[in-house]
């Protein structure tokens, strides 16, 4: 059935990294450590991208999440300082744990296993060939491709940057006045 070759072992390693890291994020009382766990988890996700033959996404995952979003999270943790020492404060701990377990069970038993589990069609990728980054570039900017979302993404980023600067700057000016 399932061969234990290199990629299968790698799959399990990345699954452990991803899910273990995610559990670390939600259970750690210290937010900085939570950020580090988040990075471990997202690093595992980058590994999945490699296994799924999308190495470009893997590099981007490391670049964007570990290089930038992690830094942003640590800055935010330090800027809202007293919280790092806050004892862990959960609201609705058990209801939400139960809800999450139920959600998982529903997804697996209700959707994933009946639809994709025994289906031979989804046991192997349909084609061995994969597209390169160069093809991705052509698809992103060609007229019949994704050029409109491409430009909208740029607008979204511009909007997010201006918005975030406006919001964060208020706090900065207030502080300088004091």
């Amino acid at each position, binding site marked *: 059935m*399932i061969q234990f070759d290199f*990629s*299968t072992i790698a799959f399990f390693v990345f*699954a452990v990294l991803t*899910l273990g890291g*995610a559990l670390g*994020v*939600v259970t750690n009382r210290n937010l900085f450590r939570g950020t580090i766990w988040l990075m471990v*988890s997202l690093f595992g*996700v980058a590994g*999945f*991208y490699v296994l*799924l033959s*999308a190495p*470009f*996404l893997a590099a981007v*995952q490391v670049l*964007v*999440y570990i290089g*930038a*979003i992690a830094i*942003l*999270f640590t*800055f935010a943790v330090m*800027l*809202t300082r007293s*919280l790092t020492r*806050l004892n862990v*404060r959960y*609201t609705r701990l058990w209801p*939400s744990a139960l809800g*999450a*377990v139920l*959600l*998982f069970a529903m*997804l697996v038993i209700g959707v*994933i*296993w009946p639809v*994709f*589990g025994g*289906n031979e069609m*989804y046991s*192997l990728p349909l084609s061995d*060939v*994969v597209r390169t980054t160069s*093809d*991705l570039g*052509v*698809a*992103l900017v060609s007229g019949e491709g994704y050029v409109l*979302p491409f430009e909208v*993404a740029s607008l*979204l*980023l511009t909007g*997010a940057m201006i*918005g*975030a600067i406006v*919001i*964060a700057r208020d*706090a900065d000016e207030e502080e300088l006045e004091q």
Partner: protein
Amino acid sequence: MVPLSWYLIVAAALFSIGVFGVLSRRNGVAVLMGIELMLNAVNINLVAFWRYNTTIASVTEPVPSELNGVVFAAFMFVVAAAEVAVGLAIIITVYRNWRSVIPEEADTLRG
């Protein structure tokens, strides 16, 4: 190679952990971390479906729709980045004004 359902199960587990994080934490930064986990679970699904479901007709002539999974995932990065940037900026400002990072306590706008 592992079958598609394994990726979906891992993604479902990641999504559920993210939901747990969002629902149970009171700290705004921790809630955003949970949302990041959920977004990444979605991304795994997008790329996995793409990998297992796309037929590539010809190697030399790429059709844009053969890359939809990767393109969607790339746009998800954009969305995630915008969300983190604005979300954390709001949390910082709320903290400076109310000395609190608990979303429920910033309720001045409530009618």
